[in-house]
């Protein structure tokens, strides 16, 4: 991993206690030993099925969840040991765009106040300066005319427009790093591309790093430079998006790609290989490789005992599977 990374996690573990009455009866291991790095001006897609911990990982990178162990470096500073006050200062350099544009905007604020709020909170600029910045941000996310949209309430806007407001709010503090948590999954297909194009434009203009959390491989391919596949709280494969998607190496990645519906009518009767079973419970995940109960290449006595390390399997490519053991050297 490059030293040039802006955000980097080291053996990050985030457990949530399961409470019953007064005692803690277990822990949900939402993120369990994740090493991830995101370079400057890079877009990393974090892909996984629902409940695999990708959103939790995204929230942890923003300092919104306290990890149980491990480190999160942002521009060389470990977020996990910062006080709440210092964390607030760091958060000014980050932004977030959530999945649900209907829930992520305060319905009792006007668009102007929603976008202005981060500036007010962080005491940036005078009133006039802020006004200028807000209108500029609205123009940047293509809410034209900005003055017109600024006076609207969220309920007067469409889903796409709301998501643009959310983006404007995320970029108004000129962040270096933006977490976008499934930003297009609730939008119409026609608007998705526009939003993703907008992200790309913003990235080009301001040199922002993106963590693009999604379960949609198609948009990940469209938007990201690098991809990280997550399964049951762990990252199983990382690499350049195009390479990973065209030549998946981890059995789970392969299964994911196999599950993409094939638009070719001639293949309509071909049975697709879908891994049997369901994702494991994060309270009590399987021993060894988390994917082993569903894996077609399951090796008795190995996969269910040892945790597979990350193998370097190519240029910038890593996969956590014992299948690569003979081919490559340990990272």
């Amino acid at each position, binding site marked *: 991993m490059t030293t040039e990374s802006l955000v980097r996690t080291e053996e990050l573990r985030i457990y949530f206690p399961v409470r019953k009455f007064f005692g803690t009866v277990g822990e949900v291991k939402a993120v369990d030993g994740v090493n991830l790095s995101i370079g400057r001006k890079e877009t990393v897609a974090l892909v996984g099925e629902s409940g695999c911990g990708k959103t939790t990982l995204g929230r942890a990178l923003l300092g919104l969840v306290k990890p149980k162990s491990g480190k999160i470096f942002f521009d060389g500073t470990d977020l996990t040991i910062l006080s709440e006050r210092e964390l607030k200062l760091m958060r*000014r350099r980050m932004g977030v765009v959530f999945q649900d544009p209907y829930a992520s905007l*305060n319905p009792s604020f006007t668009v102007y106040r929603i976008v202005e709020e*981060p500036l007010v*909170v962080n005491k940036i600029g005078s009133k006039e300066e802020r006004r200028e910045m807000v209108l500029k941000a609205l123009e940047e996310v293509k809410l034209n005319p900005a003055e017109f949209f600024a006076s609207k309430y969220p309920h007067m806007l469409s889903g796409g427009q709301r998501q643009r407001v959310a983006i404007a709010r995320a970029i108004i503090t000129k962040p270096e790093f933006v977490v976008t948590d499934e930003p297009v999954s609730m939008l119409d297909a026609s608007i998705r591309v526009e939003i993703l194009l907008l992200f790309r434009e913003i990235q080009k203009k301001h040199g922002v790093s993106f963590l693009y959390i999604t379960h949609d491989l198609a948009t990940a391919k469209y938007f990201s430079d690098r991809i990280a596949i997550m399964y049951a709280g762990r990252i199983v494969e990382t690499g350049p998006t195009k390479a990973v998607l065209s030549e998946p190496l981890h059995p789970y990645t392969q299964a994911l790609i196999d599950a993409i519906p094939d638009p070719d009518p001639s293949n309509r009767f071909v049975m697709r290989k879908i891994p049997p079973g369901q994702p494991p419970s994060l309270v009590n995940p399987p021993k060894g490789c988390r994917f082993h109960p569903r894996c077609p290449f399951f090796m008795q006595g190995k996969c269910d005992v040892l945790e597979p390390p990350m193998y370097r399997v190519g240029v910038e490519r890593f996969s956590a599977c014992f299948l690569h053991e003979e081919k490559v050297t340990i990272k």
Partner: protein
Amino acid sequence: MSSIIAEGLKSVASYKSALIGAAIILMLVGISIYTVAAIPYDEAVRLWRAGEQTWIEAPRNAYPTWYSYILQKRLPETIIKDSSKPELGVNKVIVPAGETIKVLRIEMSFAFDYDDIPSEINIFYTVRYNKSAPQITMTWIKPDGTEIELRKFNPGSDGAYYLSVDASLASREVERLVNKFGQRPSYELTPTVSLFAVEDRSILERDTVTVMKGVYRLSVEGLLLDPQSDFDLKLVVYGKVYGWAGTDHLRRDIGIALLWGTPIALTFGLIASVSIALIQMAIGAVSAWFGGVVDNFIQRVTEVFIVLPFLPTLIMVSTLYKIDIWTILLVVIILLSFGPGVKNYRAVFLQLKESQYIEAAKAFGAGAPRIILLHLVPRVIPTMIPAIVYSVADFVFLEAALAILGIGDPRTPTWGKVIEDSFYGGALFKGLYYWTLQPAFLLLITSLSFALVGLTLDKIFNPRLREV
């Protein structure tokens, strides 16, 4: 937020029931403003607590004046004649009749054309002399010329002659009637009746007694035995109606209590409902936001307060400590601060707290106070406003209920206090309906108006109710 409220107000106007309610509330507010301006609070309390001396010239248990219109007959109003204040129909002459002796003559006359007999007659007199008290004779002259000697006496000091309860006069009157008609009246004749009734056989039966209309006179003759000696009297013929609201058993004008009850009821209700709603919401917000130990503690305290029986606790507190109405208000607020509302608001906040826009606010660095005040609280205000308006009526009723239970503030004139007085004064038993019904009516329209407005606000702020 302000535009939402403006929109809300606009749509309130489209509901007729809300307009009626708002009109009543405005009227009550108008009455309050008038009352506070016209009768200062201390003055009202003084009048209310004054006792009989202040109200001595007002009739006891008099009906409101508008009873005359309902009963279609002219009920007598109070007539006061004072010999020290000469006016038409009042004459006072002192003629010297020797070296030291003077003859005093006071003539008072008044027209009486009401349809009912007065409730009471009193004569208050002042006297001045050095050695010997003057000799006074009072004579009552009815319009038909019948002369009745009331009393012959030497007033030693200032005093009052309670004519209506003069037993010797009563027995003399009965004797006079026996001589005239050869029959005793079939009922216990009081001087008030015999002084005002028509002098025929109808006076012998309670049901047939009729009022003699015309000019009555009170003639006083006296011998002033000292040079400096003087005598003055004030005749008070008490009517059966007084003011717009009548009087109670202590001759007090109920109107004062009804007027002052309005601002007190509104203030009590509004302060209680607004502050309880705000406090409960604040506690709920803190509980939901901080969670953990704080939440646990607040919830347990709330449960204790919910289990505490509200009314008995309040009765206990006001029995142990003699408290006035504003202390009662404070106790009510304290008792209800950790009320069930805390649980409701906490539930709402727990849900809101997890919403993404709150997460976003945290992400860009907003602190807890800012998030609670700017992002959470405004979201519950739409549900709070109708609830507050509704509960105003509850607290107005509560204040009245406490007064009726006898644990209200005895000093302050309130609607509940009037109802309590009427209860102990046996108002309904004696047929003095106005005494109970007027404050009850005011309570009723107050709660009705707030309910009408609250219902409408509920419909506007919670649109899902509109279909029901």
